[in-house]
């Protein structure tokens, strides 16, 4: 029977010749991950299963990225609990501050997540790894704990939705972030609830690997169970030197069945901005232009990769940030940080008047390092703009890609990059 890429990976890990949407399966896991917020609860639950050891210390990733470097005593205690568990269990994929990065940038970069993998993570943006052609989905701490104990998880096979992007003529500065915001604007924050979101077409092939991570990262913002893009030459090129174990490449059958297929012409998609307080409140940057800002944040597991920093630097080069705006830049990992340094991007940021941080989730979740006061307004390249997401419940977060963010930091208000650099 013909299947989608998601169905194939699920069937493969359930040891079944085929699966159909709605079917409940138990599947073997290639990776179980947690962070310093969800990990402590998962570890607490893990101890209740009556087993001493995790199912496979090489298939677990524990990433202290949310409140690290620890912002206070309570978060230090949580990080310590996870660190001690990692040592005691001899968890292979654990990184200390100075080596750690934001989980969804770090794990693909380190070759921990590979095509064809079945991954659960106690973090909703675990869906990011779908950009490598893996099945990856976010779960809670208790599901994560069960995964740690058994190496298996139960799943309901989701229906798939296919989003086909025709053409390769992107408008200037349009990136993966704009495509995914555009989709969420069309279908809403529950438009893909319980479903797999498969991205395909020439437009996706033309997108860089970094741009694909950004798209799959935000599948959860449409309620999706996973986002997925079949691995191609670009994926293979990205994995070169990173992958240290064999992997399987899956692709949807041409006659696979979808609950819905939506088609778009990439040339018709303008730069996007999502207004408070839901990622579905999208507008073109022209419509949102002129909104005054107090803070701009470039980074996170959505847009903290090298390509994002290059785009931002391209706009900031030789320019100064608006005197009334704070620009905070969070590279996703140490490797990205160092690469940015080698390429001279950090110099550009510092010259422009930005603060560049060590990799951390920081303000993305209103954790630390850039919290908003009452009434303040930020534009961020992050993925959520819920009430209070970056600080005070009466603050506001707007979402965009890195080009709009950098241009807006220069102008002090939401701006199209052409307002800063001409028709680039």
């Amino acid at each position: 029977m013909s299947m989608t890429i998601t169905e194939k990976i699920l069937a493969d890990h359930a040891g079944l010749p085929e699966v159909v949407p709605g079917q409940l399966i138990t599947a073997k896991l290639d990776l179980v991950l947690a962070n310093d917020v969800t990990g402590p609860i998962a570890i607490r639950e893990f101890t209740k299963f009556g087993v001493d050891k995790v199912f496979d210390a090489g298939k677990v990733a524990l990433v202290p990225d949310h409140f690290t470097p620890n912002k206070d005593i309570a978060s230090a205690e949580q990080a310590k609990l996870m660190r001690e568990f990692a040592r005691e269990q001899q968890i292979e994929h654990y990184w200390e501050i100075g080596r750690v990065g934001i989980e969804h940038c770090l794990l693909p970069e380190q070759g921990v997540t590979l095509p064809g993998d079945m991954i659960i993570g106690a973090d909703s943006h675990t869906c990011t790894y779908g950009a490598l052609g893996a099945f990856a989905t976010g779960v809670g701490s208790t599901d994560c704990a069960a995964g740690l104990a058994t190496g298996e998880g139960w799943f309901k096979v989701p229906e798939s939705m296919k989003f086909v992007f025709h053409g390769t003529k992107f408008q200037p500065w349009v990136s993966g972030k704009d495509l995914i915001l555009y989709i969420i604007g069309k279908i809403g924050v529950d438009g893909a609830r319980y479903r797999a979101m498969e991205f395909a077409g020439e437009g996706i092939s033309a997108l860089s690997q970094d741009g694909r991570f950004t798209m799959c990262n935000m599948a959860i913002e449409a309620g999706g169970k996973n986002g997925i893009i079949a691995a191609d030459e670009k994926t293979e090129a990205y994995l070169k030197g990173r992958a240290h174990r064999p992997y399987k490449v899956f692709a949807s059958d041409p006659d696979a069945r979808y609950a819905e297929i939506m088609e778009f012409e990439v040339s018709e998609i303008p730069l996007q901005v999502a207004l408070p307080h839901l990622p579905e409140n999208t507008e073109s940057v022209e419509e949102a232009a002129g909104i005054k800002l107090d803070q701009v944040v470039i980074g996170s597991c959505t847009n903290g990769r090298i390509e994002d920093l290059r785009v931002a630097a391209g706009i900031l080069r030789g320019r100064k940030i608006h005197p009334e705006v704070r620009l905070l830049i969070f590279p996703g990992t140490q490797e990205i940080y160092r690469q940015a340094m080698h390429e001279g991007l950090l110099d550009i940021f510092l010259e422009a008047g930005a603060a560049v941080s060590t990799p951390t989730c920081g303000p993305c979740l209103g954790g630390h390092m850039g919290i908003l006061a009452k009434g303040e307004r930020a534009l961020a390249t992050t993925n959520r703009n819920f009430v209070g997401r970056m600080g005070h419940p009466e603050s506001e977060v707007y979402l965009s890609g890195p080009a709009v963010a950098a241009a807006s930091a220069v102008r002090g208000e939401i701006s199209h990059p052409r307002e800063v650099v001409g028709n680039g």
Partner: protein
Amino acid sequence: MGKAWKFGHDIDTDVIIPARYLNRSEPEYLAAHCMEDADAGFAPGVKSGDVIVGGKNFGCGSSREHAPLAIKASGVKAVVAESFARIFYRNALNIGLPILECPEAAAGIEAGDEVEVEPASGKITNVTRKTSFQAMPFPVFMQELMAAGGLVPYVRGRLKNA
């Protein structure tokens, strides 16, 4: 029987328990800040046995289990909504917080109504307005999981028999 606390659509996990409190994970601590950014009167006012009524996509956003833990520890007996976000749905059942999907009840219950919920049968009664509703039944697997008392005892049982 308890009082209904009513919320709108797309109530996200950041509103249920803001990230600024996620540097700790004790359920009582989380409960003290539950729903703070949506209704500051919730945490101080909620009583054991009360019910949360939400619109569509309740619990969207992050995977933080702190969200259902906070609701459960605040004494809420059940969450009734038009629909739930996937991870929240799973988390709530895993930790033993009854949640019922019932668009009619979500529409037919107002803030402050006295409500009676029977999670096992899915029967929801609005005592104040003398109406009753039937929630969608749980899938069989979920029923087994709930009968076992949540995911931990369910998996522990399976590990023992393996």
